[in-house]
C-alpha cells in the first residue's frame, strides 16, 4: 500500500513538474519569436525612415523655381499620401524627380478589424528604385507653413511632416504585445525657406 502511494505521489509530482517546465519553455519560445519578428520589422521600418529623412531634406536642392520643387500631395479619404513627388539636383547637378507612391499589398486583422496594408514604392526619374516595407498601414505627408499651420499648397510649405505606421510582417497580430511601429519626423528642407 505504501509503495502504491509512493508511486502515485511521484507520478503527480512528475506531472506537475513537466507541466510547469513545458509552459515555461513555450512562453520562452513565444517571447523569443516575438522579439525576433519585432526586431526585423523595426529594422525595416527604420531603414525606410532613414531614407525618407535623408531624401526629404534635399527637396528643391538646386531648383530655382519654387513651383518645380514639389507637387501637391494626392491623398485618400484617411489622409494617406497615395502619391507625393518632388525634385532636387544631385551633387553632379543632375535633376532627380522622385515619387513616393502607396500601393495596396495585403490586409491584416488587428482587434478583429481587417486593415489594408500598403507598400510605399519609390520611383526615381520614373523608374522603380527602392521603397519601404510591404506592411505600411498608414503613410502621411503634410505640408506646414513656418508657423506650423497645415497647408495643401506646396508653394506655401516650409516644413514637411512625415508619419507612418507599419505592422509586423507575420504572425497573428492580436497575439503580439506591440503589433505596430509608429514613426514620424518634421523636416525643414533648406530650399523651401528660400
Amino acid at each position, binding site marked *: 500500500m505504501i509503495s502504491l502511494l509512493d508511486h502515485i505521489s511521484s507520478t503527480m509530482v512528475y506531472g506537475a513538474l513537466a507541466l*510547469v517546465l513545458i509552459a*515555461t519553455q513555450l512562453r520562452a519560445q513565444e517571447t523569443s519569436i516575438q522579439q525576433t519578428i519585432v526586431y526585423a520589422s523595426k529594422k525595416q521600418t527604420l531603414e525606410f525612415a532613414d531614407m525618407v529623412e535623408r531624401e526629404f531634406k534635399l527637396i528643391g536642392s538646386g531648383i530655382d523655381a519654387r513651383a518645380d520643387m514639389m507637387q501637391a500631395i494626392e491623398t485618400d479619404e484617411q489622409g494617406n499620401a497615395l502619391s507625393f513627388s518632388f525634385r532636387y539636383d544631385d551633387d553632379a547637378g543632375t535633376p532627380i524627380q522622385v515619387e513616393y507612391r502607396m500601393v495596396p499589398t495585403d490586409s491584416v486583422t488587428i482587434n478583429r478589424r481587417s486593415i489594408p496594408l500598403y507598400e510605399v514604392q519609390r520611383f526615381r526619374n520614373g523608374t522603380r528604385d527602392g521603397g519601404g516595407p510591404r506592411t505600411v498601414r498608414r503613410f502621411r505627408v503634410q505640408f506646414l507653413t513656418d508657423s506650423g499651420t497645415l497647408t495643401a499648397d506646396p508653394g506655401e510649405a516650409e516644413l514637411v511632416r512625415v508619419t507612418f505606421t507599419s505592422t509586423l510582417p507575420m504572425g497573428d497580430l492580436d497575439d503580439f504585445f506591440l503589433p505596430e511601429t509608429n514613426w*514620424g519626423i518634421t523636416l525643414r528642407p533648406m530650399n523651401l525657406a528660400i
Partner: protein
Amino acid sequence: MPQSLLAFLAMMIATSSALTQFAASNRVREEMMKSELEIMANAVALEAVELQAVPVGFDGLTQFSRLKENTYFTVENRSESFRKEWTVKYVDSSGNESQSPTDIREVTISVYHSRYTRPLVEHTRLIGQ
C-alpha cells in the same frame, strides 16, 4: 521522507525557473515598449525644434530657457503623452559652454515619458546670431 524532500526541491527549481522566465519575458516587453516610445519621442523633439525654436531665432530662444511643457504624439485617434524640457545656453565656437554671452546659443530639448525618470530622447541644435 527523502523522497518528499527531493520532490519539494524539484518543485522549487521548476517554480524558480518559471519565475525567472516570466521576469525575462517582462523585461523584453519593457524594452520593446521603450524602443517604441523613443521613436515617438524623437518625432516630438524634432518637431518642437523645427516649429518652436528655429522660427524664433537667436534672440527669441530666451523664452525656452528651463521651459517645461506637455505634448502629444498623435496617431489617428490615439495619443501618447510626453513632457518636453528645454535648456538654452551660450556656447563658444568650439561648442563649449560659455558663462558670458556669445554669438551661438545651444538649445537642447529633452523628452520625457511618465514611465521613465530619465529622458527618452535629447536633441541639441546650435543657433547662431
